[in-house]
């Protein structure tokens, strides 16, 4: 019986080992990115081209920005590609990344039902628009997942002049007590709904409830023009400077995590910020609309 | 005539376990049912208790055909009662067990109390009234099961080997009870047994089964 078990275990280990050899034949770079980047479809254009040019296959792990950055900090990936500039700068300053390279930008839009009960249609000043939603107590769906979009949303609320309240939980990290804090409008239990899910889910949620929400333009276009039935939400406020959404790419610092594939990561950074990558980004169209604007000189 | 059956056949998984012709049971008598194990005694008792439906043939009870409609079956079942060879007691106290038959008939609590105490006294188990039914010995269980059956004052008492697995002292108590309720209440009794001494002491009639068939029936006079 025991011999039999050992034989089985041995066979299993052998299989795993061979399978491992099978996978390691090509060069694989691990990249964590945000769900919005992946759902925009841009990566499906970029990555095969990069593979053609360099022979490197990229394994994409798509999560919220918070989790994507966390993967970088833990050394689970070789490079991160996200859109939360302040946190990216902090990531580099703390020594987790070597440097931030600007790649591209798109913008956020404020969505709402066609009926627009809060009356914000056409208001370019997004801070003012949010103020009106808060005043009318119209339902607003928040990502609430610590993502780039959520970070942006909290900053916009702060700028809107609406009273904010902080929700914090005390937890222990590395043996020390620390606080996890979220900002949300004060006295908003009836209308501010924080659902802690990805962009697509938030848009569907807002569509179901015919509520307002902040979304990145890429995901919005996908749900509005690339889906049948289309969502019944419209862009009600857009074009404000504060709605810009810059994407950056950061290789994980090999000094923190010696096992990361820094060389390969830099190869990808050079390619995506170079002429070839930037042109592909500028030429990318989703449902006939340009989504991203190259940022690298 | 209490029971009358003609060409009554019962099959189990395609095998004939009972095949009765000319089968009659009279009122107010004690019948002893004898035969080897597997001769069909238990099956017959289950049929007489209206718990098992014969495969074919006709059974009469008190001069009327036994129907298999659920409502009629309930009325019939409430006139007879079967005590198993290894009786099952429900979870709960002895008293709860004894009052069960009365409770399902919607008899008032006060009457249930009185009746339950009566029959517990009859079987000599009154001091076990609030004992846990599952903690009794085999003989005690059998006496409680007997009390439970008698509580509803049945017209017919069917007993599958009433003294099997019971010590001598309890055997005597049980046989005394059977004799007494037959004499005092005119309850008809059909019991299966292996003991000639019991037949000699109690039975007015003896029916002998072999391979599901009635091979011998004779009258006797109890001592």
């Amino acid at each position: 019986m025991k011999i039999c078990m050992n034989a089985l275990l041995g066979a299993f280990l052998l299989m795993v080992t061979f399978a491992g050899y099978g996978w390691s034949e090509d060069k694989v770079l691990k990249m964590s990115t945000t769900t919005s980047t992946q759902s925009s479809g841009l990566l499906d254009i970029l990555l095969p081209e990069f593979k053609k040019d360099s022979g490197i296959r990229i394994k994409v792990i798509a999560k919220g920005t918070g989790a994507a950055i966390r993967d970088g900090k833990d050394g689970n990936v070789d490079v991160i590609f996200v859109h939360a500039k302040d946190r990216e700068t902090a990531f580099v300053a703390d020594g987790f990344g070597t440097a931030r390279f600007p790649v591209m930008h798109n913008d956020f839009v404020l969505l709402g039902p066609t009926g627009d009960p809060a009356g914000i249609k056409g208001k370019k000043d997004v801070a003012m628009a949010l103020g009106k939603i808060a005043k009318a107590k119209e339902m607003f769906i928040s990502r609430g997942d610590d993502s780039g979009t959520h970070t942006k949303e909290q900053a916009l609320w702060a700028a809107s002049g609406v009273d904010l309240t902080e929700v914090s939980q005390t937890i222990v990290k590395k043996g020390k007590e620390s606080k996890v804090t979220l900002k949300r409008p004060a006295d908003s239990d009836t209308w501010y709904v924080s659902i802690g899910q990805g962009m697509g889910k938030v848009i569907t949620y807002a569509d179901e409830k015919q509520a307002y929400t902040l979304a990145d333009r890429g995901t919005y276009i996908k749900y509005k023009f690339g889906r049948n039935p289309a969502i019944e939400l419209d862009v009600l406020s857009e074009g404000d400077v504060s709605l810009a959404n810059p994407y950056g790419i950061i290789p994980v610092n090999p000094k923190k995590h010696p096992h990361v594939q820094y060389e390969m990561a830099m190869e990808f950074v050079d390619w995506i910020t170079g002429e070839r990558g930037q042109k592909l980004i500028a030429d990318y169209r989703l449902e006939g609309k340009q989504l991203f604007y190259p940022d690298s000189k | 005539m209490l029971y009358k059956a003609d060409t009554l056949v019962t099959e189990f998984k395609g095998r004939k376990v009972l095949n009765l012709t000319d089968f009659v049971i009279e009122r107010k008598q004690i019948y002893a049912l004898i035969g080897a194990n597997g001769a069909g005694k238990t099956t017959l008792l289950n049929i007489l208790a209206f718990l098992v439906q014969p495969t074919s043939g006709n059974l009469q009870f008190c001069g009327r055909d036994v129907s298999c409609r659920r409502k009629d079956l309930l009325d019939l079942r409430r006139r007879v009662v079967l005590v198993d060879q290894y009786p099952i007691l429900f979870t709960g106290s002895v008293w709860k067990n004894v009052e069960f038959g009365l409770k399902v008939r919607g008899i008032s609590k006060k009457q249930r109390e009185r009746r339950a105490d009566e029959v517990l006294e009859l079987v000599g188990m009154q001091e076990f009234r609030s004992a846990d039914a599952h903690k009794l010995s085999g003989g005690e269980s059998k006496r409680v099961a007997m009390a439970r059956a008698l509580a509803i004052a049945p017209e017919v008492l069917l007993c599958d080997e009433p003294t099997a697995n019971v010590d001598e002292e309890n055997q005597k108590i049980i046989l005394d009870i059977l004799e007494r309720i037959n004499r005092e209440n005119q309850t008809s009794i059909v019991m299966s047994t292996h003991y000639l001494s019991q037949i000699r002491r109690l039975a007015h009639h003896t029916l002998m089964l072999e391979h599901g068939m009635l091979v011998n029936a004779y009258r006797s006079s109890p001592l």
Partner: protein
Amino acid sequence: MDIFLDSLESAFLLLLACDPELMDIVAVSLKVSTISTLIASLVGIPCGFLIAYSSFYGKRLLLTCLNTLLALPTVVIGLLVYSFISRRGLFGSLELLYTQKAIIIGQVILIIPLVTSLTIAAVSRIDKRYRNTALTLGATQIQMALVIIKEARYGIGAAVIASFGRVIAEVGISMMLGGNARGFTRTMTTAMALEYDKGEFVLAVALGLTLMTIAFGINMLFHFFQGRAGIDAL
């Protein structure tokens, strides 16, 4: 290992402080799971009894189907219910989606097969002589059923507890139909999924530990009620 120790300490800290956020999440989880289990039991126990005690054509097929349904992924139920209660669905006008009611609907569908099949198993284990004894003593079919259910109560109790465990631990239905809205439909499992997505592993594991504590407490309670008779039955 660090994450685990930190989480353990965090869980204690949050529970000791009766963190309102955490309490709210726990309350929603318990409320929704309890109602789901209750409804599923009210349907599943009688169904299980009926199936166990009746013989009909296709019973084996039905049992096979029930056992297959046990393996039904929560996501499938989520999708199915979603398609009915979405704003564009058949029952869209009821505005059920992303409410606690929606989670309950999904969870009830999830565990009815579980309660039913475990009830069938529990009832089938009860000696057939209980049925005959009740009938010969003059019980109606319903009175007989109550006797059997009483005798099978530990098995049926275990079925209910197992179902509760299934719903309080499931995440697919709560996420898809509840939508993880903070203060409304955020349950322990969806909160965990969220904290994981945010990269806050410590908080996620702390929630997990709380969930396990609650599960443990409920099982202890069950064993307490089972008492000595329960131990005898083992």
